[in-house]
């Protein structure tokens, strides 16, 4: 594991240095990335101009959801986002080059084109999250405080598992980057809002089918002390880590099976 992280850091560092050869572009792209992320926040802000609460959640509470989902997703994107380019490598046959090296191709893909600008997205989200923490009407007990980092981490792992699962699909369905994006980026978008704004069937789907509800919704119900609109047992609020582990247990074999199905291209 330590070796894995060291290799990751080494690859990411090399790519960052390559990106740093164009410092102006690096800074501008970083700023642009941050600006685009801020637009999401502006959209939520606009809604609150018309109404003081969304589905029973105040501004600070929605920002809390936004912050936790955002941090989880952006961190997973920084770590694993490169993996979604797999289809390009499959189509061009350039995956061959990654496969003859003694390092997991997933690791090589994830770090490919790693650039410090990826951190640009973190800035606005972190600010929002800090503001939300300061304003949510929560009586901060030790378990509640502990839940916050746990949920961010759980969310990160869940999103990362989805990157791998949906990317593995690209081995079989070559033009399926859209599917990857709809689950990952789409999931990040959905979890920015209280899930209670959606119909009950969607919430059920997000709990039992594509378990994005465990990224931040269920644990937030505990932290913010809200009733569950589906009336699910209280244990669901703490089930995030279990869901994350199960997803990882699925993602590993899915990736391996995908690799076995790789067909390469004609020379």
């Amino acid at each position, binding site marked *: 594991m330590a070796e894995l992280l060291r290799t990751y850091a080494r690859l990411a560092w090399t790519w960052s240095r390559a990106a740093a050869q164009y410092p102006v572009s690096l800074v501008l792209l970083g700023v642009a990335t941050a600006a685009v992320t801020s637009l999401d926040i502006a959209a939520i802000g606009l809604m609150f101009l018309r109404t003081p609460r969304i589905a029973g959640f105040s501004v600070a509470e929605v920002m809390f959801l936004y912050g936790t989902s955002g941090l989880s997703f952006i961190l997973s994107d920084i770590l694993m986002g490169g993996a979604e380019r797999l289809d390009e490598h499959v189509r061009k046959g350039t995956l061959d080059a990654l496969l*003859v090296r003694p390092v997991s191709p997933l690791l090589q893909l994830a770090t490919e084109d790693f650039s410090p600008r990826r951190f640009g997205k973190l800035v606005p989200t972190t600010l929002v999250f800090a503001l939300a923490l300061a304003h949510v009407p929560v009586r901060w007990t030790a378990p509640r405080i502990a839940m916050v980092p746990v949920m961010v981490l759980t969310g990160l792992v869940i999103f990362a598992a989805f990157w791998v699962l949906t990317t593995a699909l690209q081995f079989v369905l070559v033009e399926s980057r859209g599917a990857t994006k709809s689950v990952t980026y789409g999931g990040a978008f959905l979890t920015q809002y209280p899930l209670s704004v959606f119909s009950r069937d969607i919430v059920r789907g997000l709990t039992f089918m594509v378990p994005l509800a465990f990224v931040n919704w269920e644990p937030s119900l505990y932290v913010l002390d809200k009733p569950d609109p589906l009336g699910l047992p209280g244990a669901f609020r703490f089930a995030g880590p279990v869901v994350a582990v199960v997803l990882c247990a699925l993602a590993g074999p899915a990736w391996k099976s995908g690799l076995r199905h790789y067909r390469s291209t004609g020379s």
Partner: protein
Amino acid sequence: MIELADVEKTFVIRKRTGGLRRTRTVFRAVDGISFTVRAGEFVGYLGPNGAGKSTTIKMLTGILTASAGRIRVAGMDPARQRTQLARRLGVVFGQRTTLWWDLPLRDSLALIRHLYRIDPDDHRARLAELTELLDLGDFLDVPVRQLSLGQRMRGDLTAALLHDPPLLVLDEPTIGLDVVSKATVRGFLERLNVERGTTILLTTHDLGDIERLCRRVMVIDHGRLAYDGDLAEMRATVQADRQLIVDLARPGPPIALPGIEVVRTEGPRQWLALPRTHNAAAVIAALAGRHEIEDVALREPDIEEVVARLYRTGLPA
């Protein structure tokens, strides 16, 4: 070093035949191949496009999983132990680089050191050696995308050899190279094989590579081995015609001799295909009896013709 026994690779191809209907055809890219390459050998692997060369190479290196049969490379099963095998294996694809496109060559090579966990001192010594042998000095700090094809190939060779693998697999390493670059690469490979004892498996379309480097050739066609053996023997076994070049005293109609075909005429000069069954001396004597001859020359078939004939007819039983 390499062992293949009855290896097959099939691909399923789905073709759309109007609407939602699809036909499913099974394509046998490799159809039962067996061979063994011993340590220290330099083997040429030949075959026309689509014959299954690259597919074989990809199975050897663990990129593709064989549909049937047994493969051992350096004592390992490539598909299952791909990562482990990668440490004992150097691979160069002539058509695409394994280097990082946007990084300077030096950084790419430094990264390779970390990926393969090469000792820093070993790395430095090996890099210095390869830099000298392949003349990399001028472009070590240039991003890979700006390198010429010849430079890139030398960079790729270096990257594949930094970890000093006992086996080097090359897939068309001289494709598109100019004469000078080709000579550099060939000379380097020869030294590597002779001095370091590196086992080399080389696929190529450039028969010059084979003639210069390989004592043993394997020819694959339609997914099967058509020939495996000595290069000189292949030339002898495959009954390729010799060529008799005749300069007549004056231009005339094509020479008519039983069983001999005139391939080309150009003024007084005529090219005759001389089957192996004919005795050259007898043919020349017969010619001299009927025509006034200025000069004759007899040419052995070159490897292109031998291989072309192999592709056409397969090996005579």
